[in-house]
């Protein structure tokens, strides 16, 4: 069973929900796919041990064979190659390693090297195996690390993917093979706007989903109107609570300190796993 926790807007509580679920599970693999700013490990005592460096292919040009014809630059969908009068310029961090340039090169002047873009770490605590992807600072390609994370953790047992925010490629890569997705939102105009984008994305991906409303204050009826109109089920509401915020700011998840929330997250997990939803 693979559960993705996504959001649209950042800072709504993906980590809160993903960690809450993981902490009440008997045995779980938690995967922090927010590789630009992973934070699950902060609540679990550190990043653990290095599993591997993540590398991706990057294009190189054999200048003795190259005729500067420009075909590679024309086919590159990522703007990673420029062919000038006397040289070929490759912008490493733009290259997705797709191989198109190598296919069109008429003189076989293109080859690949591996380039490091980040790391994967593993932390074990209690029944939780936490795999965290870290994208190196300055690197723009988050998706290959998420792809690698998923290959490393496999598909057995209970898996929880803590997604990056937004609705772009890294989120799609995180969510697309999940059995179920929980969208976390907050009752603000910004939260609602980004929720609608996340709902559009998840429907396109055809992944069953529901919503958790975080920092709920019962003062933004637009959110409830939208959810009702779209027929979206709200699985849990977490109130806007100073106690929860205080614990969280110390790196303590409230499930660990507030027994009633342990129970509520257990119920949430059972609901999602049991397929009692949708």
């Amino acid at each position, binding site marked *: 069973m693979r559960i993705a926790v996504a959001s649209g807007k950042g800072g709504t509580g993906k980590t809160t929900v993903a960690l809450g679920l993981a902490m009440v599970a008997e045995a779980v693999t938690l995967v922090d796919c927010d590789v630009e700013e992973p934070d699950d490990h902060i609540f679990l005592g550190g990043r653990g041990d290095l599993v591997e460096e993540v590398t991706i292919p990057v294009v190189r040009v054999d200048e003795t064979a190259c005729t500067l014809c420009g075909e590679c630059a024309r086919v590159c969908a990522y703007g*990673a190659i420029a062919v000038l009068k006397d040289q070929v310029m490759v912008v490493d961090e733009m290259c997705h390693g797709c191989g198109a340039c190598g296919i069109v090169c008429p003189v076989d002047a293109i080859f690949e090297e591996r380039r490091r873009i980040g790391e994967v770490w593993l932390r074990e605590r209690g029944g939780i195996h936490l795999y965290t992807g870290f994208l190196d600072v300055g690197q723009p390609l988050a998706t290959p690390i998420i792809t690698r994370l998923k290959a490393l953790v496999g598909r057995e047992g209970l898996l929880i993917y803590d997604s990056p925010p937004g609705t772009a490629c890294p989120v799609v890569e995180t969510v697309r093979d999940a059995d179920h997705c929980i969208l976390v939102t907050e009752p603000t105009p910004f939260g609602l706007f980004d929720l609608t984008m996340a709902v559009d994305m998840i429907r396109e991906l055809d992944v069953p989903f529901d919503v958790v409303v975080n920092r709920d204050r019962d003062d933004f009826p637009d959110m409830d109107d939208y959810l009702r109109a779209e027929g979206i089920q709200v699985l849990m509401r977490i109130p806007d609570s100073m106690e929860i915020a205080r614990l969280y700011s110390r790196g303590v998840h409230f499930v660990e300190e507030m027994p009633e929330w342990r129970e509520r997250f257990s119920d949430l997990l059972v609901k999602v796993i049991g397929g009692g939803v949708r």
Partner: protein
Amino acid sequence: MIIGIPTSGNDLSADVEQRFGRCQRFLIVDSGTMDFHVVDNSALAMGGGAGVRAAQQVVDEGVEAVIAGEVGPKAYEVLERANIKVYARVTGTVRDALDLVRSDMAKGADGPTGPARHGR
């Protein structure tokens, strides 16, 4: 001198477009005769890498200089490696910008005007 200028207009009275990689089109102007032609920016709708593609396009047009508003680091590197002189942070109409450059009043850029955007 052949000069490439990003713009959203179609002639010399149009404004210099501030974003190089994401401009609508380029005016390719011969500053000696003021003859020009227009090329659409093929990089406009790219998800990322627009700067490199746009720079490649003006290189292919055979320009010797570029007059622009903002020029990001990747576009700048392509232009620099192609030995194309870059005049950046220029505002106003294309004609005024050309006058500035022709009268030697404009200062060449010594680097990109801002950080990489990576498609954002």
